């Protein structure tokens, strides 16, 4: 299923300048892996060497922090919006 991934300004060099991209996946982890497959470079920016989401990266599904859902195992449904928010972004 396809979800919309919102890309923060700091990472738009990896998405060709796009603020949103569509990605397939059944879970947040799947979506982010597919994002890296279609736009190489996201993987190393989002995940550490052990494959864990970096602590300075926040991910929201339908405006809920996945930290309080099921983490990268959080199930996504078609049409949902997944937002990537770096820890030191969001202000101005």
């Amino acid at each position, binding site marked *: 299923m396809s979800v919309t991934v919102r890309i923060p300004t700091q990472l738009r060099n990896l998405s060709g300048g796009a603020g949103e991209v569509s990605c397939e996946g059944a879970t947040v982890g799947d979506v982010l892996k597919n994002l890296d497959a279609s736009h190489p470079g996201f993987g190393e920016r989002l995940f550490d060497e052990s494959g864990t989401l970096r*602590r*300075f990266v926040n991910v929201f599904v339908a405006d809920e*922090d996945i930290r309080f859902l099921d983490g990268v195992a959080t199930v996504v449904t078609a049409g949902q919006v997944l937002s990537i928010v770096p820890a030191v972004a969001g202000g*101005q």
Partner: protein
Amino acid sequence: MSESQTSARAALVLADAFAHRYRYPRDFGGWSAQASFGRDDAHYEATVAVCGAGDARAATAVRVAAPQFEWLTQELRSLSRTLFGHDFEPAEGRFAMSLDETPHPLGPLVVLHGDPHAATFRVRKHRITLASRRSGSLLEMVRVERWHVRPDARWLPSQWSVEVHDGALGQILRTDRYWDLWWPFEGEIVPQTRRVESIDTLGIRLASTLHLREWQPIGA
């Protein structure tokens, strides 16, 4: 929309969030309590009092290392500022503001103009979800992740993080994660536990805790 309309709308959004923030009534005199505090295996006892925003005192029966005592008083002052709060109008409300309503999971962005710390806020469901301020090359970002919400919908942060980023170095200097447990007392709320976990640039993690008990009201 004109600049003044944008500023008025931004002020409404931010003022509404401040109005929903829990704070003690003006005639509330504060409280004293017994405290256990420390980090890892070193814990100490203290008698503490919180009487106003930034007005917090602590005394220990035995000598406590300066860093630990400073940590205790710093956290008590932080709690006092949260609980006693401040008026919106003479503080944030005195600045012109703008509102960026581009969709964001933490809500629309309010930017203060003319503020020496270039403060910004994001607000969602009447709650502040993010606050940032600058000091030189340092950017401090406070992100509230969980709230304690009273039956009257007024909120206090119960889980939040502080990131300090140095723009000159291009790196995060420190991350502090806070967990606050609030307790009912005399019709108001007092802190029962504060846990702080700090991670520095080397990835070294330090956990500190403050437990309070036996609260007593202080007359106004």
